[in-house]
């Protein structure tokens, strides 16, 4: 799924973000930049949560103007609150198939397979509060897996996890992406995350999302703004 932002301008309160770039089908792209620069706004705008003031978003050439978030072929994972606390892990994952949770036996089999795949076998009856941070991330990924949308966007859902756990999650995300042939957009503060699974990086700063460039090239010789953000390494 090719993602095109054509002269896109998004508004979030008094903040404005412009984006004009294209992401090729099946790419894995990191989104980096200082806090408040517009990373989350970019993802929220693509997902349809923020209005486009100008320009538009196209997927495979088809414009998404006015398409509600639920009908867009994409899944966005938030930094937190990705699970409903009063639903079990299985129910939370099941929402990816049917929001009314009336699952057929076939649905249930698919759901359990997804839980197995993310490493939550046998934990379906638990509630989110009984899970570790890593397991909660896995449950959210299981739901994303079931939704099977061609664009997967992560707004730092692993920010609160330790380095080893985060690396595990990234590998899991990379695997899911590869299986589904989806395009991946992933916000991160860590160059290592980008290097690990994202060959391309979009730099977002001061309300502007720059076109994706090769991660290695960008990190080897960062522009001044990115250099300031990364600090001396």
């Amino acid at each position, binding site marked *: 799924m090719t993602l095109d932002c054509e002269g896109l301008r998004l508004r979030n309160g008094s903040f404005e973000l412009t984006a004009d770039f294209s992401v090729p089908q099946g790419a894995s792209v990191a989104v980096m930049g200082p806090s408040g620069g517009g990373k989350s706004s970019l993802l*929220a705008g693509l997902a349809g949560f923020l209005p486009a003031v100008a320009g538009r978003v196209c997927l495979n050439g088809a414009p998404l103007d006015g398409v509600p978030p*639920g*009908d867009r072929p994409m899944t*966005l994972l*938030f930094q937190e609150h*990705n699970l409903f606390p009063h639903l079990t892990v299985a129910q939370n994952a099941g929402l*990816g198939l049917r*929001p009314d949770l009336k699952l057929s036996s076939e649905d249930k089999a698919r759901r359990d397979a997804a839980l197995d795949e993310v490493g939550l076998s046998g934990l379906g009856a638990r509630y989110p509060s009984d899970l570790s941070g890593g397991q909660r991330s896995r449950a959210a990924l299981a739901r994303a897996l079931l939704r099977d949308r061609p664009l997967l966007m992560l707004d730092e859902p692993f920010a609160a996890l330790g380095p080893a756990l985060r690396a595990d999650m990234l590998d899991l995300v990379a695997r899911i992406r590869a299986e589904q042939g989806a395009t991946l957009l992933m916000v991160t503060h860590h160059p290592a995350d980008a290097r690990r699974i994202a060959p391309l990086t979009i730099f977002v700063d001061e309300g502007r999302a720059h076109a994706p460039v090769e991660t290695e090239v960008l990190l080897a010789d960062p522009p001044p703004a990115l250099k300031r953000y990364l600090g001396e390494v």
Partner: protein
Amino acid sequence: MARGAEPVSLVPRLAGGAALLVLAALTLGAILLLGAQADTGWRLDPADWAALRFTLWQSFLSATLSCLLAVPLARALFRRRFPGHRLYVAFLGAPFILPAIVAVLGLLAVWGRSGLLSDLIAPLGFGPLDIYGLRGVVLAHLFFNLPLVTRILLQGWVGIPREHFRLARQLGFTPRDQFRHLEAPMLRRSLSGAFLLVFLLCMTSFAVALTLGGGPKATTIELAIYQALRFEFDLGHAAFLALIQFTLCALAALLALGVGRGVLDLKGAVAVGRPTLADGRVARAADRAVLALGGLFLLLPLGMIGVRGLPELVVGLPAQVWPAALRSVLVALASAFLCLMMALALSAFIDTLRGRRAGLALAGDVVGVLTLAASPFVIGTALFIAINPFADPFALALPVTALVNAAMSLPFALRVISPAWTEITRAYGGLSESVGLRGWQRVRLLYWPLLRRPAGFATGLSAALSMGDLGVIALFATPDRGTLPLVMHQLMGAYRSDAAAGVALLLLALSAALFWIFDRGGRIDTRL
């Protein structure tokens, strides 16, 4: 260092202990005294049974209706933005400090026999409305508690994480799914606590029962106590009824404490997020209607007070009003000061105990609940009985009223101040320890500057509550020593409702002014 944490916490413990003692004497002491006194009145007449049934039934009806009607109103306020939205939400906090008798007069002006609605429907051939009895009591309680529950629910809606609304849209939830997964869990949590709170408040609201109730069909237990004391002078029977009242309220308060932790939050403003619920044209129209009806229901009675009272203010109020106003202000100031002192002492006390012996800290909360359960009337009855052998209770009307009113607003003041105090310790306790900021200096340089805002709010609340109180004073006061609400009640009893409206306006202005001065005073020069 020989001077460890002990010297620091000695003073708060002494002060807190003293405050606890006063409270225990007022609540548990009152119960013991009543128990000793009640042996001669240990009986339930048919009239008492009727009062018991009526008390429970009107509380149940009031709480149920408040909860049911608050759901659409809170939902509409959460979903819609319109000019004046903030004002609307802020206004929902007003009935809390509105003198009950003022509200009753306003409700009579709208719903009463010669009220606005009766005048409107008379040409259509419908007889005048009558709101004395159960209908009136429930209506008045609805007027007070619908806004309260609406605020609680609005907090609940605002508390749903934004991500969950986005998740709902992303997953393509229908309005039904949305209700089931986002709103119903919140409502279950909030409504159970709100219901019990309103139930409790309605059980102990004396002024409404006094003015709109009465007679064999609409007498509450508190009204029965009042009659036993003032008209039959049967102390034993009054004591027994007070014990029953206390038992019922304590049960409700314990349930409320267990179920509805946090429901008593009285924070000044409700943070309002963004409307993100699924929506259509019908829903928009329905919300508009709900908002308009709710606004009319709450604003009309106050508007009528203004319309009827303003000319009276211009013409001049009856002579007995001004000394009564002075007495009211003095009682309110004394009561607010007492309440603030007790709340500060108890907050410090609770804070020193937290983390060491959780049970003891909980004791502080429980005392707060006890005062909520012990209606002013129960305490007043006990004080009456305690004072009677030694002095003329009627001569001590004002000091007793100030004391009881202070105890009555304490649970609310404590809810505002105690969490703030604990939070200051959590955030800056280590820092002040490390720079050697201790004892009185710590209070002066750390706690007081940071506590001024909540303390000002709590004091204002307490002053306004005391100003409008028509409870204990009715039990103790002679006509020549009454407070403003009592004068109003006498005027209403004499069918001088226009003069009463003038007094109501004055009372309203004084209550609001007291609240405003303290609340404002707490904010001046704070950078927080």
